[in-house]
């Protein structure tokens, strides 16, 4: 029902709304988040689709991620200077798809839902800006979902926990998740998108899809893959750490307009490396704190620097720097703790990435751009919303475990 509401509202909003009322597109993700928040755990064990246990319901962490992602998407729309109503259709379809993906315990249904989300975004991206970067999104992210779809036919691995089958399945899952999360060497498409599209058009992937895929990836191991676990974990560890270091470096060296996207990708890569290869407990908590921080600050930092919010942006960059007691400090500390339990090489790569991210945030803080100042109460609304988000980020930094527990459950 939640997925149907996302889909219906998205299609309706894109058909009904006009330029003057375009900002009402924010109601689509807000309604989706509200319905997800109100949804209680179903008393029916599962909704089956033939012999498939298609929908088993949302658990607490999944519910938390979907609610925060929906609210974050709504604020992204509300704070964006100009809104194209057709984005409502993409938001609706992606929101419905991630809800189904998160609520399903069947690998085929999850993979197909993620395919629908990526296909929707790719068609929109190519129609907005036909080019090498947007086509690469279809090629690589589409290939990633293909790997997940193919892996589903080999799961579960009952009776086949040794030999090539678990190794092949582990590799396919790792490649699939790496492609969807834009982890290098499968992440060039996202870097290209950040430079060629408006932030609002990239936001459904960044805010709605990535956190869900990260959480689904975290749930894959745990005895499911047999001999494939080392392949899955080591692949994600290596590509995740390499991607985090590379992303951090390019956040420092690259253009200012793509800096937030690079830092976001680097943080997600760190999280997936820790979730894949580190100690599970601190890695998962650290990744959730990092995701929560980004979902809180993305609406401010995705907005162009020239369009106002100078001081909220500066404070938001500080929250991302990793300086205590910013929320990212706690998140990255836990991720580092998880990685340090593995080997010293992982720790060095993670420290390098975190240092690069710190330098990039300092550079972003010190950059002063000419701002077009608005007047009247309408111009103050974005400021008030941005300060509210910053205040919430500060609260996460002051009580990271409590707030992440409140949002995602214990």
């Amino acid at each position, binding site marked *: 029902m939640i997925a149907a509401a996302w889909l219906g509202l998205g299609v309706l909003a894109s058909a009904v709304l006009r330029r003057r009322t375009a900002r009402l597109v924010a109601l689509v993700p807000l309604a989706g988040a509200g319905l997800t928040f109100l949804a209680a755990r179903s008393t029916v064990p599962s909704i089956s689709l033939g012999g498939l246990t298609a929908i088993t319901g949302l658990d607490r962490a999944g519910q938390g991620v979907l609610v925060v992602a929906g609210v974050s998407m709504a604020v992204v729309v509300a704070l964006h200077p100009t809104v194209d109503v057709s984005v409502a259709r993409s938001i609706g379809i992606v929101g419905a798809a991630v809800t189904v993906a998160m609520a399903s315990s069947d690998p*085929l249904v999850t993979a197909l839902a993620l395919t629908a989300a990526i296909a929707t975004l790719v068609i929109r991206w190519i129609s907005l800006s036909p080019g090498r970067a947007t086509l690469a999104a279809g090629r690589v992210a589409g290939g990633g979902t293909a790997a997940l779809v193919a892996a589903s036919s080999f799961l579960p691995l009952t009776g086949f926990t040794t030999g090539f089958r678990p190794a*092949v399945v582990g590799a396919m899952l790792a490649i699939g998740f790496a492609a969807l999360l834009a982890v290098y060497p499968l992440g060039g498409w996202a870097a290209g998108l950040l430079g060629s599209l408006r932030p609002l058009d990239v936001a459904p992937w960044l805010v709605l899809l990535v956190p869900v895929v990260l959480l689904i990836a975290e749930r894959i191991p745990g005895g499911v893959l047999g001999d494939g676990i080392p392949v899955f974990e080591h692949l994600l560890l290596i590509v995740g750490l390499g991607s985090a270091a590379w992303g951090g470096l390019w956040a420092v060296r690259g253009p200012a307009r793509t800096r937030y996207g690079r830092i976001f990708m680097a943080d997600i890569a760190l999280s997936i490396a820790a979730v894949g290869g580190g100690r599970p407990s601190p890695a998962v908590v650290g990744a959730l704190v990092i995701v929560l921080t980004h979902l809180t600050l993305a609406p401010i930092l995705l907005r162009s620097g020239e369009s106002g919010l100078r001081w909220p942006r500066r404070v938001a960059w500080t929250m991302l720097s990793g300086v205590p007691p910013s929320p990212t400090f706690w998140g990255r500390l836990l991720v580092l703790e998880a990685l340090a339990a593995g080997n010293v090489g992982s720790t060095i790569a993670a420290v390098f990435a975190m240092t690069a991210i710190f330098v990039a945030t300092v550079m972003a803080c010190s950059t002063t751009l000419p701002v077009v100042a608005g007047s009247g109460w309408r111009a103050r609304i974005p400021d008030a919303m941005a300060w509210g988000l910053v205040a919430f980020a500060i609260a996460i930094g002051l009580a990271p475990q409590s707030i992440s527990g409140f949002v995602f459950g214990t």
Partner: protein
Amino acid sequence: MGVSPPLLSAAGILAAVIAMMVDGRRAVAIAVVFLAAGMAPTAATFGGAPGVAVLGGAAVAAVVLSMAGWVGGRLLPWLAGLDPTIPAFAPADRLFGPRSRRAFGAAIAVPIASWVSFNVPVGQVATVQGLLFPIAYAWTCGVVRLLVARTVEDLAVGVSMISLATGTAWLLRSGTDSLPGAALACLVGPLAALVAGWLNGRSSRGPHARIEAEA
């Protein structure tokens, strides 16, 4: 009487090669029809009549939805449509064109599919007979087609190839969930045909209307 694995493989290879090479506005529907036909012997062996019905249904649905999408795209109000057959960017002229790269990919897919067929068991099927070969070949070709795609139509063909290959793989699992899983996986092919048809219909209406208005 057992089914000859080489015969199954030959039918699958032929269908996958045709799907790899097909271009144009009806490419998705053609790819789905040929793949369904090529995979049907494998589906019949493991899924029986219901298995063949799943693939046949996918083929029919792809043709019908492709046409419905095209008609829908032409009838509904014109918007600045995306032509799925126009390359998203113009690459430099090279010695080998897009079809050559696809042919090369189809050749590379043979040893990959062969290795998968003999080393990776699916469901309860013993792979030493090479029964997974046509499926693995069609899937690998689909991924290659995705990776060398130049147009939205190429992407849709790649997705539909992966969809039908995965659907047939689900039939080989031989469990209670194999048939619904196969049907669900095969559903993506016709949906890709619908989207491609819709985009084709929308984009084919624009230039005509504009030309008529200018005339």
